[in-house]
């Protein structure tokens, strides 16, 4: 298992490293810290050949990466890489594909002054193009311990089964509870209607969860004991998110919008609003992304790393 971490020598980069360590600890994954430096162009740089600047930039990048590696505890294997490219997002995706990575981890904030999550330009570019799940660390994420719970946000759109499979796999592999979350924005509906909607959402979630649970008798009991279904309501999605309790060591899984071309991520408007209110990291899974990391899976698929 390899996770690619998009690193930059600022608060955003630190958030990403911390989240990567949390995610890696429960899975024994190794980290590839990738620092993207811009491609120094000859176009538009009068009176200054680029070669020397590239050298200084590279030296600085190595220094930054050494500092980044020092942030990683000794139990987590990590390597550092300098990549150059015009677009950070593009370079990170390329690195993820090259390393056969199972996840891309980045800090999502641009400023973090107003909202816990306000998506930076790199993050938003990544979410439009990544073919592997993207984990977004909120501003100031400092935890470096293994996850304690996985939440999975369930919408009513197609693809929910795939997402639930992924979430179940993640929870089982890490041996942590899974919480299936249905978020309802009830904007001014009557109480009776609200209860009805909540009931419908719960039934929907339970039905899908039941379908996703493994069939083996014993297995089912073991996994089922650790899953729960929650329906959260609020006048808005943001309020619903706020009303849920979140553990420090929790992450929220979200499927990407159906606008996305198959196998790439696009953050829908609901997901975007969730992101703004969410106090914990979010992992956005591309539509049609197949989880290939379940230990118990009977699938014959080769490991992801071997596919490339």
């Amino acid at each position, binding site marked *: *298992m*390899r996770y690619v971490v998009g690193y*930059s020598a*600022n608060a*955003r980069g630190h958030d990403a490293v911390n989240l990567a360590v949390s995610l890696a600890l429960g899975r*024994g*994954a*190794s980290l590839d810290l990738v620092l993207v*430096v*811009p*491609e120094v*162009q*000859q*176009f*538009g*740089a*009068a*009176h*200054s*050949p680029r*070669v*020397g*600047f*590239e*050298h*200084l*930039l*590279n030296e*600085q*990048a*190595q220094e*930054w990466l*050494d500092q980044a*590696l*020092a942030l990683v505890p*000794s139990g*987590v*294997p*990590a*390597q*550092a*890489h*300098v*990549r*150059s*490219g015009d677009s950070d997002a593009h370079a990170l995706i*390329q690195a993820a594909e090259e390393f056969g990575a*199972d996840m891309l981890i980045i800090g999502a904030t641009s400023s973090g002054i107003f909202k816990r999550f306000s998506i930076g330009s790199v993050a938003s570019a990544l979410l439009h193009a990544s073919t592997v799940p993207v984990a977004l660390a909120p501003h100031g994420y400092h935890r470096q311990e293994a996850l304690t719970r996985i939440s999975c946000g369930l919408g009513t759109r197609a693809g929910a089964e795939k997402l639930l499979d992924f979430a179940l796999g993640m929870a089982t592999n890490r041996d942590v509870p899974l919480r299936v979350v249905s978020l309802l924005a009830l904007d001014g509906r009557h109480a009776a209607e609200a209860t009805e909607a909540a009931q419908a959402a719960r039934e929907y979630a339970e039905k899908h969860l039941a379908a996703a649970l493994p069939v083996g008798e014993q297995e089912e009991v073991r996994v089922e004991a650790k899953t729960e279904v929650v329906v959260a309501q609020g006048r808005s999605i943001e309020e619903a998110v706020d009303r849920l309790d979140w553990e420090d060591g929790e992450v929220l899984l979200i499927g990407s919008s159906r606008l996305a071309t198959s196998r790439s991520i696009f953050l829908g408007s609901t997901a975007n609003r969730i992101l703004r209110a969410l106090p914990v990291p979010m992992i956005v899974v591309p539509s049609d992304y197949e989880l*290939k*990391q*379940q*230990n118990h*899976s009977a*699938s*014959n*698929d*080769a*490991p*992801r*790393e071997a596919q490339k």
Partner: protein
Amino acid sequence: MSAEHAMSKASHAGQHTEDQHGLSEKGLKAGSVGLIGAVVIGVSCIAPAYTLTAALGPTVAEVGVHLPAIFLVGFVPMLLVAFGYRELNNAMPDAGTSFTWASRAFGPWLGWMGGWGLIAATIIVLSNLAAVAVDFFYLMLSQIFGNPDLADLTKNLPLNIATTLVFITLACWISYRGMETTKTVQYVLVGFQLLVLGWFAVAAFSHVANGTAFDATAIEPNWFNPFAVESFSAFAAGVSLSIFIYWGWDVTLTMNEETKNPEKTPGRAATVTVLVIVIIYMTVALATLSYAGIGTEGLGAGNPENQASIFAVLAGPVMGPFAVLMSLAILSSSAASLQSTFVSPARTLLSMGHYKALPRKFSRISPTHKSPSYATIASAVAAAAFYVITRTTSENALWDTITALGMMICFYYGITAMACVWFFRAEAFSGAQAFFFKFLAPLLGGVILLVMFCKTAYDSMDPAYGSGSSIGGLGLVFILGMGVILLGVVLMLVMAKVRPEFFKGEVLSRGK
């Protein structure tokens, strides 16, 4: 199926950074620039629409109808120095360029001054570029709205200074964010500039042919004779101005690994670039002289009123309603150059900070944008300050800054050329090629430029020099040029006290 990777059980690799010398191989798009691309880069670094509007007037003021001759002669020292520049760049590729090379050849003191000259020249050109952009910004507004009053807004001192500062701030911000003009934009800008300049020349010649020119003047062979320039002073002033119009051309010679064919492309690109540039300069110079003459009245190229920005005056009468294209071409090319030129002093300052020749903060690279952060802002502040000072003390700031700039380029190019001669002195006589490129060419070029520098500096003490602005009986150009160099000496002495390692030769050692 377990996806646990065998690697993850490997010993902790945490403190090991992948050993990558130079940039990661994948990053460098080796060989992505072809001949045309390289020529476009060369032409865009020169920005002919901007250089012509800025330098044509002041050069006519010095040498009159011998403008074509001086434009041709000005290329010779530039070519000679560029050979040396290329040798140094191949031997010691470094972001500090002149600073690093002169330090390696002559030691820290002259090296520091070489770097200072380069920074000063680029800072001065930044303030001039911004000012030209502002002039044509208002001119274009007036042409679009058909309201001549708008063009006069640029003469309103507080408004002019405020707009210029806004332009400088914008360019600095773009540069700080690490954004660069893309290839496509650069192609469009260069194509548009050449097209509009060609249009201007054709329109001017057809006015001459139709008898509608302002002061139709027949072209004479004598215009091409540099020895017909009346005095050596005028000749020196003209040459140091025309160095400016080729400044940036040397970039084509230093492009190596990024070209598709490093053996041949840089040389060919440099040749094609200079041909394109010389043709366009000659055509426009001849068109301007034939159309407007060098009279000091009205539209004449000799009229001091017109000399700061010749196209601002001539484009209207020559091109009619299409003059707005000229404004657009100059505005876009000077704005693009403004942004790309910011890179230069910022990188030199960064390099000087790196070698401990400047305070440590100059060597900062922004973690977010990966651009020289402190150095870029420092360049913007210096360019803004230089502009405010010149604008408030000079009757014709554009004219005087261009003259001071020519002097500054002669100064640091002269030092750079001499650094080449001295650095390679041991191999100078090892073969004909080394003798020419590492010794003779840079020596000649360097001597010419330093002579031009001294002569111009001496002449500019005359209060009537340049636009005729003066302070305390000394010409403003002299005060600007020498003031900047003196400021460099003072800062250097301060730095030697504050951070002596570099000046003891402990950071950049002399010789190979």
